[in-house]
């Protein structure tokens, strides 16, 4: 008794000439299918690229949630392209998308695969991501000095912008954390605190010099300057950060509250003559941002 084939159809005896013709047809079908799939893959790659650019545009306009959704969609599209036709370009795009979704390990892997398929620059990016991942795991295990050293190397010598920015951010956080945790007697503490702050300030200033239009660096600078009680300068940096754009709603709101905090501190400390000029300057920003009052940002409800 003959068994049905895997498709559930019964085998039928066919003349050998027809069987041979069937192989030819099959080959032809495979050939056309390959051409079709290649065409599909390249048009899907193009679609994924377009979606990636759209996600970047949304991110630049501070529509973070929509940008995240667009990056997720791009990642799905590009994964489908890769499963049909892996290429260096596709893996590179996948890696870039994963960086924007903070999927650092996945991005490192994608860049490695991109490099192995001929995208040379991806190799260096993968290395930087590996170092960043290493620094993060050292930090999670409490090895602060080692992680600080690694972040420092990346902040200074890194070439891949997202890793450099994230490293500068982590460095500042670690320095400020040391400041907050400090529990020495007052005088010794103040000296040490000033040293830590000077280091943090130098670190961010260097980053600003390298990328002056990065709003996030100005935000970090505003945070450090507030620790130094330089509210005038902190306010200026926070305003600059707001104008240049920030990477998330959370940071955006925190920056607004930083602006208000500095405004209130300056209100208390400035001399009457300086105060008038300062208020006029500050109110012109408030008007531009359409805040209801000097101390109420547009998103504040309660």
């Amino acid at each position, binding site marked *: 008794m003959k068994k049905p084939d895997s498709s559930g159809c019964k085998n039928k005896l066919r003349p050998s000439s027809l069987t041979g013709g069937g192989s030819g047809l099959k080959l032809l079908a495979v050939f056309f299918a390959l051409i079709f799939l290649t065409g599909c893959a390249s048009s899907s790659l193009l679609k994924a690229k377009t979606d990636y650019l759209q996600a970047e545009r949304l991110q630049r306009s501070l529509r973070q*949630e929509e940008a995240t959704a667009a990056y997720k969609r791009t990642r799905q599209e590009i994964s489908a392209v890769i499963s049909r036709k892996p290429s260096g370009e596709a893996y590179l795009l996948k890696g870039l998308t994963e960086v924007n979704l903070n999927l650092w390990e996945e991005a490192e892997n994608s860049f490695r695969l991109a490099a192995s398929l001929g995208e040379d620059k991806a190799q260096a990016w993968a290395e930087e991501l590996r170092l960043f991942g290493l620094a993060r795991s050292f930090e999670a295990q409490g090895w602060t000095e080692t992680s600080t050293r690694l972040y420092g190397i990346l902040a200074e010598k890194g070439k891949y912008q997202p890793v450099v920015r994230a490293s500068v951010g982590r460095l500042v956080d670690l320095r400020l954390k040391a400041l*907050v945790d400090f529990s020495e007697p007052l005088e010794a503490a103040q000296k040490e605190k000033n040293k830590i702050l000077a280091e943090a300030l130098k670190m961010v200033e260097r980053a600003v010099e390298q990328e002056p239009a990065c709003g996030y660096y100005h935000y970090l600078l505003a945070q450090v300057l*507030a620790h130094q009680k330089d509210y005038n300068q902190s306010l200026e940096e926070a305003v600059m950060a707001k104008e240049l754009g920030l990477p998330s709603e959370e940071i955006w709101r925190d920056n607004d509250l930083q602006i208000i905090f500095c405004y209130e501190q300056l209100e208390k400390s400035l001399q009457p003559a300086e105060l008038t000029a300062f208020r006029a300057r500050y109110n012109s920003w408030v008007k531009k941002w359409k805040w209801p009052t000097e101390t109420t940002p547009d998103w504040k409800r309660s």
Partner: protein
Amino acid sequence: MAGKKLETFLKQAAGVVQDFFPAGSPVFIPLLYSALVWAVKRKGDLEAEVSGLKLWLEPEIVNNKPDEFILDFFKGDPALTGTFSLELKNREIKSLRQAFRALYPVKGLEEPFLQSLFSEEIAKGDYRLIAAQFDSRLRLALDEIKATEKQLELWPALKDIGENFLSLGWALMAEPELRARLKANLEKNEQTEEEE
């Protein structure tokens, strides 16, 4: 009439979302509330917003704010000044900083999910309880949301609710009024279900 319609809508919406969570889950009302607030704010992707929660809730910079910023935060809000008067009087920065970690995202940054998660405590002005339970309640809520990631139907369901909400025209209400009505209706629903 419109109030009744809104109440019916919210009851139905709560019924839909509740099915995705275990009985008595603390998450579904905050999630529904966030879905409607985000719908009004024309935010694109609710799933992205919710999956971004972890990033939102762990801003390292919040832990490292200067003492003056923390003091200013507590002194600038009469309810917080009253609750933490002793700590403020004695300048107990360590305890204030601990409470600030929880209260700044809720009261300062006004994150809608957190505001709803702790809506009862906010209404009662029980800020000490928020500070004390922040980590555990949040972990529980995030774990439950993570568990729903496998339920792919949840996000389209929430999106539909948001879109229906917009199509019914309530988005034209002033946002504080909308939030107050949402809260009142959702909490009323919750109470009715508890009684049943």
